C-alpha cells in the first residue's frame, strides 16, 4: 500500500510537468481515437452490408447500365428470393458542396431488401402511391431542415434537368451502422421522364440488388447470374454486397493506410513525450534511488516505483482523452457528414486506446527504470542533478 502512496506523491512533485504530460497524453489519445474512428467510418458500408444480398452490375464498370429486362431472367434463377434494381442518380441539391447519395430504385422490393430502413407504416404507403415521391434519411432531412410533404429539387448530373420530388417519408436506421443520409425515389419516375426526353437511355438500370433465400447459396447464385448473361451485350458481374463495398474501399486504400500510419505516429510522438518526462524524473531522483538501495529495497521495488508513476500519469491522460473522444466525435460527425455518413466511436476503439496507453507507459518507463536499477549506490549518491 505504501508504494501506491509514494507513487501518488511522486507523480505530483512537479505539478506543472505532470500537468503538461497528462495534457499531452490526453491530446494524443483523443487524436488517436478520432483517427481510429475515421478508419472505422470508412468501413461502415461493409459493416452494414448483409450476407444475403447480392449486387449485379455491368462487368465493364459501374458507369455502364444493364437492361431492365434482366430482372425477370434473374428472378427465374434458383435461390433468388427478391430482385430489386436502381440507378445511381448523382443529383445535386442547390450546390455541389451539398453532396449526398441519391438513387432511383424500385421502391417495394428495395425496402423489402433493406429492412434496416425503418419507415412509419402510413408514410410507407404514401411513398408507394406517389410516383414523384422520395424518401430521405433522418440525418439528411435534419441537415437541410426537410419535413414530410416538402418539395425538393435536385439538379441531375447524369440525367440532365431539374427533378422535383415530394418528400413522403423520413427513414431511421434500425441500428447505428445504418447510413441515415441517403435519398431515394421511384425508378419509374426517372424512366418515364427519360422515355420522353432521351428514349435511348430509357429502360436501363445501374444495378440489381438481389436477395437470396439462403446466404450459403450466395456464391452459387452469383455465378449462375453471371453465366446467364455471358457473351451478351451487357455482361454482368455479381458479388455479395460486402465485397462490392470492399471493392470501393480498396480503391481508396492509400488514404486508409495513410490515416492508419499517422495514428501510429501520434502514439510514437506521445511515447517520446512521456519517456522524456520519465527520463527527467528518474535522473533527478537518482540520488533517492541510491538511498532506497542502501536501505535494502530491491530492484523490483525501484522499477515498480518508476513503472507505477509512468502508468499513473499516462492513465489519467488516457482516461481524459477517451472521455473527450465522444463529444469530439459528435462535433466531427456534424462537420464531416458529407464524407462520413456514419461516424460512431466503436467500443473496439476504446480498447485500442487503452492498449496504446499501456504500451506508451511501459515503453516510457523501461529505460529510466533500467538506469535506476543498474546504477551503483556510490555513483548514485555522488551524482548531482
Amino acid at each position, binding site marked *: 500500500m505504501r508504494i501506491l502512496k509514494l507513487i501518488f506523491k511522486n507523480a505530483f512533485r512537479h505539478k506543472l510537468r505532470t500537468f503538461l504530460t497528462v495534457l499531452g497524453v490526453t491530446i494524443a489519445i483523443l487524436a488517436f481515437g478520432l483517427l481510429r474512428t475515421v478508419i472505422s467510418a470508412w468501413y461502415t458500408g461493409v459493416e452494414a452490408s448483409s450476407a444475403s444480398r447480392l449486387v449485379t452490375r455491368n462487368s465493364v464498370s459501374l458507369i455502364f447500365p444493364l437492361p431492365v429486362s434482366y430482372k425477370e431472367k434473374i428472378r427465374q434463377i434458383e435461390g433468388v428470393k427478391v430482385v430489386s434494381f436502381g440507378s445511381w442518380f448523382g443529383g445535386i441539391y442547390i450546390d455541389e458542396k451539398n453532396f449526398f447519395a441519391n438513387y432511383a430504385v424500385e421502391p417495394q422490393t428495395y425496402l423489402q431488401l433493406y429492412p434496416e430502413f425503418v419507415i412509419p407504416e402510413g408514410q410507407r404507403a404514401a411513398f408507394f402511391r406517389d410516383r414523384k415521391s422520395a424518401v430521405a434519411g433522418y440525418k439528411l432531412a435534419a441537415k437541410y431542415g426537410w419535413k414530410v410533404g416538402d418539395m425538393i429539387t435536385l439538379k441531375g448530373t447524369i440525367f440532365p434537368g431539374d427533378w422535383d420530388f415530394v418528400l413522403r417519408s423520413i427513414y431511421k436506421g434500425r441500428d447505428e451502422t445504418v447510413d441515415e443520409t441517403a435519398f431515394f425515389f421511384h425508378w419509374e419516375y426517372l424512366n418515364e421522364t427519360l422515355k420522353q426526353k432521351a428514349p*435511348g437511355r430509357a429502360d436501363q438500370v445501374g444495378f440489381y440488388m438481389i436477395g437470396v433465400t439462403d446466404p450459403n447459396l450466395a456464391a452459387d447464385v452469383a455465378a449462375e447470374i453471371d453465366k446467364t448473361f455471358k457473351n451478351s451485350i451487357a455482361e454482368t458481374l455479381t458479388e455479395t454486397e460486402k465485397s462490392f463495398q470492399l471493392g470501393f474501399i480498396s480503391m481508396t486504400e492509400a*488514404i486508409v493506410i495513410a490515416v492508419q500510419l499517422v495514428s501510429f505516429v501520434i502514439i510514437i510522438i506521445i511515447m517520446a513525450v512521456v519517456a522524456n518526462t520519465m527520463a527527467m524524473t528518474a535522473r533527478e531522483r537518482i540520488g533517492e534511488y541510491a538511498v532506497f538501495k542502501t536501505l535494502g529495497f530491491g530492484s523490483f521495488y525501484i522499477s515498480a516505483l518508476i513503472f507505477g508513476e509512468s502508468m499513473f500519469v499516462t492513465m489519467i491522460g488516457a482516461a481524459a482523452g477517451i472521455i473527450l473522444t465522444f463529444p469530439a466525435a459528435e462535433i466531427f460527425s456534424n462537420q464531416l457528414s458529407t464524407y462520413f455518413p456514419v461516424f460512431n466511436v466503436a467500443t473496439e476503439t476504446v480498447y485500442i486506446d487503452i492498449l496504446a496507453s499501456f504500451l506508451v507507459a511501459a515503453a516510457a518507463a523501461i529505460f529510466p527504470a533500467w538506469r535506476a536499477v543498474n546504477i551503483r549506490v556510490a555513483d548514485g549518491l555522488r551524482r548531482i*542533478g
Partner: protein
Amino acid sequence: MKIPFSYSLRNLRTRRLTTVLTIAGMALVVFVFAAILMLAEGLQKTLVDTGSYDNAVIIRKAAGSEVQSGVERPQASIIETQPEVAIGADGKRLLAKELVVLIVLPKRGSDKPANVVIRGISGSSMLLRPQVRLVEGRMPKPGSSEIIAGQSVAKRFKGGGIGETLRFGMRDWSVVGIFDAGNTGYASEIWGDVDQLMQAFRRPVYSSILFRLRDSSEFEKFKARIESDPRLTLEALRETRYYEKQSEMMAKFLRILGITLTLIFSLGAIIGAMITMYAAVANRTDEIGTMRALGFQRRSILVTFVMESLLLGCIGGFIGLFFASFLQLFTISTMNFQTFSELAFSFSLTFGIIYKAMAFALIMGFVGGVLPAVRAARMSIVESLRAS
C-alpha cells in the same frame, strides 16, 4: 554581456536522452507537417500540369465531369464550326471530340480491381496536349482495335504493357504504344480510336470536346454565346479550371485532414519541448543564480534559454525534413471521390514547403521555450543561489 552560444549547445549534450527524445518528437511532427504539404502540393501540381489554360473543354451542362457528360453528334458539329477554334499547322482544326468511360482493370501483383479511364481520341488529341509524348511503340491506327497506355497504367495494371492485350467491350485490344504524360492525370489513362471505342461500348454520344482557343481572351465571349444557344445544352470551361474542379473534394479532404493533424501534433510537440525546457531551467537554478551574480543580465539568460529551445526545434526540423524528402520516391494512387477514377500523384517538395516546415519547427521551439525562459530570467539571485 551575452552568454556564449556553446553554453546552450553543451547543455543539450549533457542531457542526451532528454534532448534526443524531444528532438525525435519535433522531427516527427515536422515530418507529418511536411508530408501533408507535399501531398497537397503534389495533387495541385498534377492538376495544374494536366490542364492547359488556352484549351477549352465542352461538357454537358451540370455534368461536372467528362464521365457523366454526353455531347450528341449534331451538337459536337456546331462546336466544331465555331470561329474561336484555332487552326493547326496542317490547316485542320485543333479540336478533338472524345469519349471518356471507366473500366475496371485488375492491378498487377495484387489483382485488386481499380477504375481506369479510357479515352477515345481523335487526330488532334495529341496536339492539344503537348505534355503527352509517345515514348514506346506507335500510335493506334484509326479504325483498328489498338490502344496506347499511359506509363502509370502500363506499370501497374495487368495487360497494360506494350504487346499485351486487354479485353473489354467484347473485343481484344492490343497495346501498341506507351505514352509518357509526366505528372499529369493522363498518366493513369488508356487511349484508343474514338469511333472504335464508341462502337465497342455502344455509346452513340461523345463525352467531351476539347479545343485550342484561337485567342485565349475570347473564352468569356465564347462561353456566354455557347451557353445561351438554345440548340446546345452544353457548358464550356477552361481546361485548367475543369481539372481543378475535378479534385476539389479531394483537395478539401486533404486540407481538413492536414490542418487538424498538424494542430494536434504541434500541441503534443510543444508540450514536449515545454517539459524539457522547464526541467532544464529547474535543474540549473543554481547555475542561473551564479550567472546572475557574475553580472549576466536577465535578458541574456532569457535569450540563452530561448536559443536552446530554438536549437531543439531547428534540429528537429532538419531531421523531419530529411526523412520527408525521401517521400518524393512514393506515388499515391487513390480513387478520386468525384470522378470515381484512379488518380495518381506523388509527394513533391518545394522550397516553399521547406521554409514553411522550418518556420513551423522554430515556432514550436519558441512557443515551447519562451515560458520556461521567462521563469529562468525572473529568478532572484539570492533565492536561486540558495536553492541547491
